[in-house]
């Protein structure tokens, strides 16, 4: 069976500056993969290409085996690709309830989304009339993640879930991610904290300088991670 979302030899550029030089990444069917790498390795850019925010300059983006290079983020979102951006990706001037309404724009059922969100994160129910901008960091991340969990995506891409959050909240969020992965959603997490990412993932990709330096089972990734983070001679 085809991977729900895969990049093959993808290059991507901001203006004239190329930042991905032929990247191969496939989100495993119904599992968790981790995308690791130091600052500036191209992890977020890879996710931007996967979610349709950036168009590949070369190579292919495949969704369930279909070549879809020139399809934008809106359409991919309707095809079940869901990216949770880095850093509290919510609409600050919309209430929690409105954030959920907008999250259902990809055709998901708003009732189900609300139910999932409020069951997993009861704190959101208390604050549903509040502006999302006034939530705490953890609550914002819960709201952002609720979209990924409640809109029944086929692929869930998560960028730096743990950034700036207390360990206890991080654990809570990752448990929720593990739950949906078990339900059959394919998940790709980007993490700077390599050990944290590797704990939940079965497959790992390590990026360095816009290339994939390692691709394989997460147990064998630690050497590649060290090399990428500490800059060993390659």
């Amino acid at each position, binding site marked *: 069976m085809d991977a729900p979302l895969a990049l093959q030899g993808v290059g991507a550029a901001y203006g*004239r*500056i*190329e930042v991905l030089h032929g990247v191969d990444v496939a989100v495993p069917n119904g599992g968790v993969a981790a995308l690791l790498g130091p600052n500036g390795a191209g992890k977020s850019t890879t996710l931007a290409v996967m*979610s*349709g*925010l950036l168009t590949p300059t070369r190579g292919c983006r495949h969704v369930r085996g279909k070549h879809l290079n020139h399809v*934008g*983020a*809106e359409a991919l*979102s*309707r095809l079940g690709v*869901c*990216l949770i*951006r880095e850093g509290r*990706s*919510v*609409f*600050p*001037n*919309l209430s929690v309830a*409105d*954030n959920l*309404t*907008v*999250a*259902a*724009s*990809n*055709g998901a059922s*708003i009732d189900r989304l609300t139910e999932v969100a409020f069951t997993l994160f009861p704190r959101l129910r208390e604050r549903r009339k509040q502006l999302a901008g006034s939530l705490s960091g953890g609550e914002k991340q819960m709201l952002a993640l609720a*979209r990924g969990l409640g809109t029944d995506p086929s692929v869930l891409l998560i960028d730096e879930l743990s950034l700036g959050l207390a360990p206890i909240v991080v654990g809570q969020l990752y448990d929720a991610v593990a739950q949906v992965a078990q339900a059959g959603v394919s998940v790709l997490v980007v993490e700077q904290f390599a050990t944290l990412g590797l704990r939940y993932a079965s497959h790992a990709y390590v990026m360095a*300088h816009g290339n994939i330096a390692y691709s394989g089972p997460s147990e064998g990734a630690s050497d590649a991670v060290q090399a990428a983070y500490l800059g060993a001679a390659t």
Partner: protein
Amino acid sequence: MTELFQYTLFGLMLGCVYAIASMGLVLTYTVTGVFNFAHGAVGMVAAYAYFELRVTHNVPTPIALAIVVLLLAPITGLAAERLLRRFRGADYATSLVVTIALTVGLLGFAAKVFPSTDDRNIPFLFGDRRFVLASVPITYDRVAQVVIAIAVAFGLRFLLFSTPLGARMRAVVDDPELARLNGVRSVFVARCSWMIGFALAALGGVLFAAGTNVNAIVLTLLVLNAYGAAMVGRLTSLPMTFLGALLLGLFQSISNVSWLWPDGDLFARVRLAIPGLFLVLAVLLVPSFRLSAGRIVGRDQPTVPTLRRSAMAGMVLILGVAALVNLGPDSLQSHVVRGLVMATIALSLVAVTGLSGQISLTQYLFLGVGAFVAGKAFGGDNVFGMLAGGAVAAVIGVLAALPSARLRGLHLALSTFGIALIAREAIIADPRVLGRSGLAVGRPDILGLSTSGDAAFAVWCAVVFSVLALLVVVVRRSWFGRQLTAIRDSELAAATLGMHVRLTKVLVFAFAAFIAGCAGALFGGMSASIDQPQFEPVNSLVIVLFAFVGGITTVSGAGIAGLLFASLVYAESTYPGLSGVVFLVIAAAAISLGRQPDGIAGIALSLFRRPERRTAPAEAEAREREFIAVGSVS
């Protein structure tokens, strides 16, 4: 006291119409990031369409109103969205120029389809029906205005805060990228906001026009007045916009109270300038806020020609013009003059926009000042008259730029247009300034040679244009020019380097006004007698379009703009079937060149002068990749 009460009441009612128009503007701006300068023109065309249906075809009022507001306007809004989608993410200057082009295009359309020679009296929506409230007679129309405005305000509030579509609209405002990730159809949302915006503009236009004899320019400016109200709401807040609209209506209406003013018609004209004044004050006093403005005109700084090259080009121009007017047919002479005069006006825009990156929408005011002074000073036909005109225009330029020097981008453009509106009502339209039948302006004698003939005057215009163009090149190459380039690239960075950003901006406005003033003297000489309609603020918009199409960043662009203008007028005069086509052609050209700020001149230069640039990108890319690779190894 009854008088005050009466005008307060009327003011609130007038404010309600402003509110309807300005809320549409705000909605479109917040959702799409485009300040639709054409809002006023849309209202104007809608009023004409309403007239056609209601009066010419005798359609009942509610049906005619519904067709215009709920059908025609939204369809036009859809077309506008399609047109402007190409420019999404462009800098403010691009979308401003494109919507100015729309304004001019719609004005041209109205002039062509609905000639201003015919009377078009639009009846009140409810006829003459009226009632009396505390001895003030109030027509049903006024009541309808209030009811509609309140309904629109609450309707918009309901739409935005209680419907999924509204939540999506606000989501797009908040974070467009995240909205796309959420699967929000941004095109659909943009379409909705354009349709609503246009419908409200149309509604405002029809309400303003009801009970009047429609005039395209007057009506456009009337809806344009609502921009001041939108600025009070910082282009984002609907309640504040409503408040701004009420204030504007109140100021305008209460200024009619007789005992507020001393006698004399000096103040009569100030009263008419209140909307312009309101716009300028709103832009100046409402604490500045971040607009979704990006980079400013011109991505690459065009190569600056050397002085020698420019001087030679000037000589060639003068000789060429001399040859053309002496050897060519006599009928051509007046067109050559017109082209050169227009080129000189465009040159003043090159000075302000090309050098500093700001857009000025008030050049015709300086033109008028220059023409006026040239006609009054030194006998009205003297070179010193022209220089004096330039100097006085420069002083006015300083006065106009001083309050707005801290502004930039859209704010600055709007404040300059507000100044143009004030000047139109308070100064230029005053019969004591230009006289009832216009003011005569002569052509000077140069070193004992008369330029009263068209041929000689054309050569003189070529000389003035060349000298001023050379001056622009000198300024650009100077220390001052480098400061301007720095400010144009980043005002903040320039300020941290200790440059006097505001002073520099004021000076460049003065410099541009000087050029426009000199152009004014030529303009006066060309038309022999100047009159108020020649200096309508709308003309400033038209010349901005010509300058943009020609190329607002280069001196040669100004020349091309003049050539283009003259050729269009020439075509019009030769083929009467084309009459009124100038506005339409230039609007279309500006829209299609929207992404090419260096205009025709830029395209021509990149074709002829720098062939190496066209092969460069691939090479540069390879170099950059190499550079990154090297950087990442270390």
